[in-house]
């Protein structure tokens, strides 16, 4: 699946995460900003990568600003952002979740 534009989803409010996805050339690169990065950084990245891979994205740049989101929220925001970035919002693949 090809990233066509920049896709964003989520907010900067408590318990949420904002995900911004843009074109990348070198695998999935994640720039994560989180207050709990020491404890949960790896897990947050894992959820983002898994969701993107399931959607068929191999290369992307991801900026994530986490405000303490649960895994299900991270996956949902990632899915919405990648749908917007690949311009496939009209054909949602909800089974990815």
């Amino acid at each position: 699946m090809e990233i066509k534009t920049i896709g964003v989803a989520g907010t900067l409010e408590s318990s949420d995460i904002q995900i911004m996805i843009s074109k990348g050339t070198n695998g999935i690169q994640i720039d994560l900003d989180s207050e709990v990065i020491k404890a949960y950084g790896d897990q947050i990245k894992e959820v983002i990568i898994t969701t993107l891979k399931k959607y068929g994205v191999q290369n992307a740049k991801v900026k994530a600003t986490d405000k303490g989101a649960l895994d299900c929220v991270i996956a949902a925001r990632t899915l919405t952002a990648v749908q917007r970035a690949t311009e496939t919002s009209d054909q949602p693949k909800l089974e990815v979740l």
Partner: protein
Amino acid sequence: MDKVVDLYLNNPATKKKWQNFLLKMGITDFGLREIAAIDHTLALIDENGQLVGTGSIANNVLKYIAVCNQDAVPGARFNQMVTALQHYLFDQKIFHSFVFTKAKYATSFSHLGFSELAHTEHAAFLESGTPDINDFIAAIPKIEDQFNKQVAAIVMNANPFTLGHRKLVQLASQENDLVYVFVVATDLSLFKTKERMQLVKSGTSDLKNVLVVSGGDYMVSQSTFPAYFLKSSADLITTQTDIDALVFKNFIAPQLAIKRRYLGTEPFSRTTNFYNQSLTNKLSPLVDVRIVNRFQINGKVITATRVRQLIKEDNLTAISNFVPPQTMQFIYRQKEVLQARIKEGININGN
């Protein structure tokens, strides 16, 4: 739960309320130009209909952000406000934003994923989103073994490219292995950005070690340095020029191995004079700042301001003394278009 609503400042009553709220929160600068630059304003309203927060957008810059934390979780309203402003930008496909703020608020923004580009004693300048400054620098062409070469930079608006610009570039080209010429990207000048870029490129094409690139959002752009394009107070200019100089020092120079920056002396423009001072103060000794005297022809300094004046006066013969042949041809071909732009009111006396 607080609600986000649109505010329309062209309604005098709304504007008054908004202004009173900001005054209460400690924001006191309501310059006409600052207000006129605002594209949109949002507000937070609490359950009782009271104004508890506001923020505005000007181009891709967040402005006039203030929230009242009374009876709220600290930070919650601020986060909600900034989210709302960013979503307003996202809706317009703007995914990259800046904020100028007091130094003490820089951390609040960095908690929301903003990264700091520069700060002075009083002000901080941050960006968020994509493409960011690292993407910008990564896209700039580089040469082999650049970090062991003598690299210099010149930033110019070149409105239009004159013999003065040409001689400055030529001098830098002789004294260095590589010269970056950054052309101001903001499109507020008589000559459009595309035209200025083209004229600088064609006017320096014989100099093989010169690379002409866009200054993007990071060198004398409308976002970072609005005072370059508008008459402003001394304090404001100094803050903005300091920030511009620091962005160059913190990111552009080290990542491109730039060790020298060439400037022309500025006998006429107050703003450019301030800028030269800021650059000298902030960049040395990391970057060697060389201020070169303006070049003269028959005892007269060459300035693009004079060229624009002559275009207005329709005195093309006089222009040929001041500009390289490529710029001259362009002016001959586009005379009517340029004069029409002047008639439509584009400012030709500024920068």
